[in-house]
């Protein structure tokens, strides 16, 4: 069953057609895939890739790398924006969705060396996402700080096609400072929220 979810998620990503909340549309497709999977050896991922590649050959070539980290980054940005608005509940939802995004990620595409580091980042990031999904805002922010480091490392490892800004807030954490990733140049501080919304400076642009 888990496999079929991966297949579904993978095909959704490649098609780039639907968001998660429209899963029902794909449910038929999922059943077909599930049946295909049942006939396959559970560990033979190449056949799974082939079946999806066959359908999406053209799209595959252009979106392969970046499509994989996009959903994770989107969820991260959702948490970031919610924290900037001091909206703990929305951040918590983002945390939950981030966990889903991680399970939707297709690890079979990773090289051996990437795999090891990815697993370390994943293990750590999932824990932060869990805490964010179930904590008061101060604690969410604490874990968001670590999550930001993880995401930054994840992007260095696997890349993205998004334009992002590594932004630095020197005030957070008793002036120890912390970074976050943003999709805009406009500073909206997720650590201090409305207390100091514009505190921060862009350190680096990704893409």
């Amino acid at each position: 069953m888990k496999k079929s979810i991966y297949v579904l998620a993978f095909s959704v990503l490649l098609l780039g057609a639907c968001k998660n909340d429209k899963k029902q549309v794909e449910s038929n497709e999922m059943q077909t895939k599930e049946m295909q999977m049942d006939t396959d050896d559970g560990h033979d991922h190449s056949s799974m890739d082939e079946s999806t590649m066959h359908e999406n050959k053209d799209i595959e070539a252009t979106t392969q790398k970046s499509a994989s980290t996009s959903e994770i980054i989107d969820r991260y940005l959702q948490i970031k924006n919610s924290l900037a608005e001091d909206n703990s509940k929305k951040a918590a939802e983002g945390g939950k969705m981030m966990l889903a995004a991680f399970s939707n990620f297709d690890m079979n595409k990773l090289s051996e060396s990437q795999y090891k580091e990815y697993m370390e980042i994943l293990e750590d990031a999932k824990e932060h996402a869990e805490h964010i999904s179930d904590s008061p805002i101060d604690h969410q922010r604490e874990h968001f700080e670590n999550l930001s480091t993880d995401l930054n490392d994840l992007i260095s490892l696997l890349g993205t096609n998004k334009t992002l800004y590594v932004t630095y807030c020197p005030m957070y954490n008793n002036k120890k400072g912390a970074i976050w990733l943003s999709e805009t140049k406009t500073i909206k501080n997720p650590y201090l929220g409305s207390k100091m919304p514009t505190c921060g400076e862009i350190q680096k642009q990704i893409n």
Partner: protein
Amino acid sequence: MVVLVGIQFIPTTRNQSVLILQTDFNNTFQVPNNVQQILKISCYDCHSNNTNYPWYNKIQPASWLLENHIKEGKKELNFSEFGTYSKRRQKNKLKSIINQIKKDEMPLYSYTLIHKDAKLSERNKKDLIDWLSKQKDSIEK
């Protein structure tokens, strides 16, 4: 689960010597004696494979509640298995430990209410935080 049930029948002192793993916090870092002592008294009951059970553990539902509590505690942080965490995770765990101590979130109030000796004095807190911060900064990733 089996271990936790089994522990009830083994004298505590013996149990402590049996369960020290290679991955234990004390094998991951050079932990000074005073820090070891504080961790053992204030943290290990819920955050290690080695619980020093109180007398009321023999009574239900206290026993069941404690078991759940320890399960949760170990899931978050297990000093007995600290060495199995990646460097990235070790560093973040140390950071979280420091934050929890600073904010007086840990040890839990409900725990120190009964275990008076587990309550951290200001001196204890400073010793812990100073040493833990040094270890945290010494980890590259």
